[in-house]
């Protein structure tokens, strides 16, 4: 049996919502990460909990892009598609590379499934030539599993649920993965259900063996460990990284984290994750709604914890009034928006970047807040840490934008050592001088006195306040000064953040691509390809959207073309025009899914042609 060395590959597991594709994909990812590959994943599931079985709208998919080189997106076209039923095949066929491999569960192609996927009687994609440009392997997993488990004490439903393990084992063999961590996982997960454990392990191994023994393949694939910088790695999902970033920053600030949230897709996992870390002094508060959540977080911050709250678009809308309060009382607070397709309820399980202007301007009155965005699952950790640092050290609410794509995506992460993380210093009031709640330091930051600090009792609130004393003031000039000072305080954060660097290229290039948030990966890959092809373009990725890094305007001014790819109708463009009057070329995609590198490449080339 020959082993073919590949540089990278993309595998897509697709099946019905009930087929366990998310678990299958996660296991494959973990094993692949442990194998030393770099990777990126992209789960894609329906908005319904259990969309109608067998229908196209009920298909759940999990895509893994992995390689021996660095991986920056969850991949474009797919090399290997696992299709558990007709609908899964139909829905994903257009993602497959020409001559790509399809592994089909024949059991999912019976008359019922064909009908549910809208095939007329007698038609079947397995036989009608649809798949003639692909390599197809057909296995009747249903039958095999039935046979294998015929003596199992499990009921039919539970038996059928193991089918995904067959496919997982099969693909492990194909890509030469080590089954060990999955075997351990199954043992742990079903520790209390020995029959279920036995069945799953048996089926998983059956998949492995079936691939090995049936001579379906003339070769298997090997993707060698990637040349990643040496260090300790783990797999991390975006929401998980974000949660850990909050915990880490709170610890480095010597504060307890108080996270208040109301469940909403795709932000709920932050709440779930943090509720498991109470031994870090983390308190999680599931509030009655998003307003109560930010309210409770403000209360906790007033009490000297670091308050944080997370949500997605519709919940963000509800928080805006309270964000204004947090802004006025100048307390640290982290507000996370894991963006999803909008507007309104929109596309709850899909990704989008259309809440940037809401983050910037979605409040009554002049209430500028720092806004940061995460680029990748592991970047979520860093940005959450940084957002928390800014909130605490600058006594301000901070908005952190993530999105559904990175929130649910995963990648290997060279996690840091606690000791190497920077210390965060809350500007606590000291007893040296009489406490004045709105006395400010040279960064315009006020001092923080929390209940329990003797002699520093004071009142804060949403009415305009007098400089220094914080007493209510309706004085005209005082109001103007306070508005300007609060703006200056946020602007001054630019002094404490790094200057903007190039991700690739330099001012010598005529074109620059400016990305933000999750469009990082696709932009990076596109730029690498373009430069290979000789298109002279640079890449700037923005972590800080407000304030911008100090040198950004000067940098952009040096390019003939500034190209801004965004998963919205052109929102960063508004901010660049506002700040620098930069003429920009906007590349937008509003389809609930991430850019393909190829889309960015094509656009840049087209723009290059007009230079």
């Amino acid at each position, binding site marked *: 049996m020959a082993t073919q060395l590949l540089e990278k590959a993309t595998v897509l597991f697709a099946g019905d919502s009930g087929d366990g594709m998310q678990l299958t994909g996660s296991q494959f990812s973990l094993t692949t990460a442990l194998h030393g590959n770099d990777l990126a994943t992209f789960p894609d599931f329906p908005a319904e909990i259990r969309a109608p079985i067998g229908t196209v709208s009920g298909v759940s998919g999990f895509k893994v892009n992995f390689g021996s080189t660095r991986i920056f997106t969850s991949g474009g076209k797919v090399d290997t598609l696992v299709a558990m039923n007709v609908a899964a095949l139909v829905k994903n066929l257009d993602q497959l590379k020409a001559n790509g491999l399809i592994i089909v569960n024949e059991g999912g192609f019976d008359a019922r499934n064909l009908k549910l996927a809208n095939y007329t009687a007698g038609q079947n994609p397995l036989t009608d030539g649809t798949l003639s440009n692909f390599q197809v392997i057909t296995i009747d997993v249903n039958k095999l599993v039935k046979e294998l488990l015929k003596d199992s004490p499990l009921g039919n439903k539970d038996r059928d649920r193991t089918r995904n393990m067959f496919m997982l084992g099969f693909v492990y063999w194909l890509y030469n993965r080590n089954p060990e961590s999955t075997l351990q996982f199954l043992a742990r997960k079903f520790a209390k259900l020995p029959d279920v454990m036995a069945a799953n392990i048996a089926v998983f191994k059956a998949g492995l063996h079936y691939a090995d023994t049936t001579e379906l393949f003339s070769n298997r694939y090997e993707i060698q460990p990637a040349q990643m910088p040496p260090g300790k*790695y783990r797999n991390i999902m975006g929401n998980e990284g974000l949660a850990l970033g909050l915990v880490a920053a709170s*610890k480095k600030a010597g504060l307890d984290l108080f996270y208040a949230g109301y469940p909403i897709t795709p932000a709920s996992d932050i709440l779930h994750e943090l509720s498991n*870390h109470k031994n*870090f002094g983390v*308190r999680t508060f599931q509030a009655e*709604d998003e307003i109560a959540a930010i309210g409770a977080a403000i*209360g906790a911050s007033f009490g000297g914890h670091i308050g944080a709250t997370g949500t997605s678009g519709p919940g963000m809308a509800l928080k805006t009034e309270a964000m204004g309060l947090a802004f006025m009382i100048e307390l640290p607070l982290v507000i996370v928006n894991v963006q999803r397709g909008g507007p309104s309820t929109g596309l709850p399980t899909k990704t989008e970047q259309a809440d940037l202007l809401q983050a910037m301007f979605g409040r009554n009155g002049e209430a500028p807040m720092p806004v940061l965005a995460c680029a990748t699952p592991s970047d979520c950790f860093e940005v959450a840490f940084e957002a928390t640092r800014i909130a605490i050290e600058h006594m301000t609410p901070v908005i952190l934008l993530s999105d559904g794509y990175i929130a649910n995506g995963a990648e290997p992460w060279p996690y840091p050592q606690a000791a190497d993380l920077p210390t965060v210093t809350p500007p606590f009031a000291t007893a040296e001088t009489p406490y004045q709640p709105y006395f400010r330091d040279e960064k315009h930051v006020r001092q923080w006195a929390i209940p329990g*600090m003797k002699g520093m009792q004071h*009142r804060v609130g949403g009415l305009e306040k007098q400089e220094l004393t914080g007493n209510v003031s309706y004085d005209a000039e005082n109001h103007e000064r306070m508005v300007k000072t609060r703006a200056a305080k946020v602007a001054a954060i630019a002094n404490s953040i790094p200057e903007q660097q190039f991700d690739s290229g330099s001012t010598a290039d005529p074109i620059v691509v400016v990305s933000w948030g999750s469009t990082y990966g696709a932009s990076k890959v596109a730029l690498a390809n373009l430069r290979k092809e000789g298109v002279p373009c640079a890449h700037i990725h923005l972590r800080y959207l407000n304030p911008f890094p100090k040198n950004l305007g000067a940098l952009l001014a040096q390019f003939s073309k500034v190209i801004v790819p965004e998963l919205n109708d052109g929102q960063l463009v508004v901010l660049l025009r506002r700040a620098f009057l930069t003429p920009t070329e906007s590349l937008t995609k509003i389809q609930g899914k991430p850019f393909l590198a190829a889309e960015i490449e094509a656009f840049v080339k087209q723009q290059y042609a007009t230079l």
Partner: protein
Amino acid sequence: MTTDTVTAKDFATDQDVRWCPGCGDYSILKQVQSIMPELGLPKEDIAFISGIGCSSRFPYYMDTYGMHSIHGRATAIASGLKAARPELSVWIITGDGDGLSIGGNHLIHLLRRNVDVNILLFNNEIYGLTKGQYSPTSELGKFTKSSPLGVIDQPFNPLSLAMGADASFIARAIDRDPILLRDVLRAGNLHKGSSFIEIYQNCNVFNDGAFDPYSDKKRKAEETLILQEGKPLVFGLDNAMGIQLDGLTPRMVSLATCSADDLWIHDSKDHTKAWLLTRFFDDPKVAGHFPRPFGVFYQQERPTYEKAMQEQVKQAVEKFGEGDLDVLLAGRNNWEI
């Protein structure tokens, strides 16, 4: 600061009090300040959180930590504060609009969670700060700026609502009876759990005299029923009248014809009786109406939210050990390159 030398005056701030002259809020402020020393806590361990409304200016006048927040959200903010800092004494100041209109949801959720705070709801049956619109406690038919043809929304019965939300302590007081008000404030403070205290408060600008039946010297005795633990329910001039329970039905009886022993004895632990008392809510203009009860209706000990939260943190530490950041960052599955 040794707390025993502290007096009510120490709780005043240097800010001018800005309510209308004659407003009932003054009395409430005074009674609250005067019981503060009895908390036995240094000022810095006390926090007053309010929403928006005339009443919600209260924190500016208390030399404790305080927040004059946004409309209706004091309850949410205080929940976070108390959950984070269970050792603080947290007081919520709200109005009938702030607490029952825009803030109704946070209020009922706070009550069911039993966060150990004291909620003072200043009920003046009107929106004061916005200059005289009807509130969720304004009576049917009332003419206000926003109801020129009369209110058509049936008002809330705030104490019934609180019981429906499983409040663990409910009470009613009135601005013009300072002694009773102080007693109720003290009881609320001692209660471990959410104390919901409705305070009738005269808005002499937009709703003057709304509670006159309960404060007017001449009518007060007939119109109010003062609840005293373990004592029979009596009212009227010289306590000549009493309340009896006939099955589920309360009846007013004259003590001339009925012995005090046969009267309803107030038991603030009795949930059903407390419910019935909240239903003594008749319009005093209607013939045969019941007197309006004041005092502590109900109190029940049950676990507080913040204690349970603290407990979980403790349990987590016991089970998993004090959180080690390096272990957290490393996760369960990792590898070295």
